[in-house]
């Protein structure tokens, strides 16, 4: 797991100020817990003896809030929170954007076109591989994987508006 170095054990408390990982995540979890508990409270809670559908989610929301508060309270020893640690996040967003396209296009454009566009994007745009290699790989993988999954393994794959 990637962690930035934490505050040295002998570091005086005054030198440990500023935003720390566990302050941020603990507060976020505490807030999420409270929101979940509030939402669960809208469901039938039942009683202690006869719990309803909202009972356990409410209890778990409270528990999540308490654990979040405990994490934040003990956060002074955690690494300093720095946005620079997420510098690889831009590439991550580019990768997730490709997957979001797949989610939007799969049932509209069909399997083969979606996978072809997805690979063109990853290999040609994100990774800037030579276009010839990108194109050949794209065609081979889009058609080959369709044959493997749809024909040989009989996995149902979506057919788009173009009928394939």
């Amino acid at each position: 797991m990637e962690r930035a170095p934490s505050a040295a054990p002998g570091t005086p408390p005054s030198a440990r100020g500023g935003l720390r990982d566990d302050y941020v995540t603990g507060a976020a979890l505490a807030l999420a817990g409270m929101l979940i508990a509030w939402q669960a409270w809208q469901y039938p809670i039942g009683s202690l003896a006869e719990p309803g559908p909202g009972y356990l989610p409410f209890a778990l929301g409270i528990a999540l809030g308490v654990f979040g508060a405990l994490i934040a309270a003990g956060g002074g020893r955690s690494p300093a929170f720095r946005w620079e640690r997420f510098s690889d996040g831009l590439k991550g967003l580019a990768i997730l954007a490709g997957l979001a396209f797949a989610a939007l296009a799969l049932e509209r454009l069909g399997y083969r076109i979606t996978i072809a566009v997805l690979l063109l994007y990853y290999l040609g745009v994100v990774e800037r591989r030579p276009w010839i290699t990108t194109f050949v790989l794209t065609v081979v993988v889009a058609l080959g994987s369709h044959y493997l999954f749809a024909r040989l393994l009989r996995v149902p794959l979506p057919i788009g508006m173009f009928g394939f």
Partner: protein
Amino acid sequence: MLETLGSLATGFEIALQPQFLAYAFAGCVIGTLVGMLPGLGPLAGISLLLPGTFGLSPTAALIMLAGVYYGAMYGGSTTSILMRIPGEAASVMTCIDGYAMTQKGRGGAALAIAAIGSFVAGTLSVVGLMLLAPPLAEFAIRFGPAEYTSLLVVGLIVLAYMSGGSMPKMLAMAALGLLCGMIGMDVMTGYARFTGGATELRDGLGIVPVAVGLFGISEIILSAAKAREVSVRQPKLRELVPTGAELKASVGPIARGSVLGFLIGIIPGSAHIISSFVSYGIERRLSKTPERFGSGAVEGVAGPESANNSAASGAFVPMLALGVPSGPIPAVMLAAIMIHGVIPGPLLIADRPDIFWGFIASMYVGNVVLLILNLPLVGLFIQVLRIPYRYLYPLILTLCVIGVYAVSQSVVDIWIMIAMGFLGYGMRKLGYEPAPLVLGMVIAPLLELSFRQSLALSGGSYAIFVARPVSAALLALAVVLLALSVRIALTQRADWRQHLGLEERA
């Protein structure tokens, strides 16, 4: 004993049928690749393969997925030893001395010791599984909802305790996982919860998109960002033969790793990872020359590699005997057999001996297949590592899209995978463990059902959880573990987990 041997013979009759041999072989090959490639650990690999098993019988599906699981344990050692890149988390400890041996020109011997250790441990642990699971299942037949509630609660707490790190963080992840598992219709009343009106969420979150997102996509994001060309040195066949001294030094670590791994495997948690850490720590402590560790001690390869394979089999004990997953990987495998209409639980061994004994026998076969795959054919597998990651990860992502969509033909699952990938990336960066989240999500429906059934049986009295001896003992264990964690947090004392390198030192 005779009855066990008779059942095992029946199992071999099933496992040695050509189609089951083929599935075991396919699972072992895929597993070895999954273990070698960064960004595709055993959990994501098994999840992605799940749709491909829908057309198979439950026995075939289980045999193939188990092959992937223990194949990944074998495969993970190759990249660790030759490239200092752990293909999956359980091989992290092997990197230290395995790669040091490679630098000294003993990489081939390290691979051989890892494969032999894995084979011995894998085989011994299957014997343990075979002897332990049936009596445990017989005992568990008497379990009622109260026992199951306590068992599931203690399972989550043991997972949080054993995983090392901060207990509040682990419990927060377990709570979040339980909440994720409660999305959709309430198990007793059918009331829709946390669906936001989306009909696709009424059946709840699927395990496959969650597991692939949390473990696969997040790992790909992290690996793709630091992808670099790597050089792989392929060992020659004659280099694979260990010296007499290396073999002698490995006997003890392999034996200890086998027993230790199996025992840790039974306990809830990411057993294959924890066992390799614990084994490394123990071997270093037992060694008369601990200073050799880190610079090419063969014991540092033999112990952890044996332990992680043994733990993989140990994890099947609660899964097959009780129907309760001890970690995220057995949870996905349980989902795989449930899709085929098989009900997991203590009655599985009695009702479906073909599945249980066929599976056990296939594990013996699988270990032989893996020994063959991982020694003479190691050069062939190494060729895959020469594919640059920037070409490899787009192909893995394509597999993720197909695998996740195919489970229920729903693009909503792809959106869930994306969200979980984002969450998993953040969790890894900020020091949160995803395993309790996945396990919590899987056991949530069973936990809620057994909890409410217990109260219905007792007329609303919570005393049912302490009035029944097994339930009371399990809850007492949970309280003890919580108390230990609180004590450690308050006193800032180092406990056994820190001594064994499982927990970050403050």
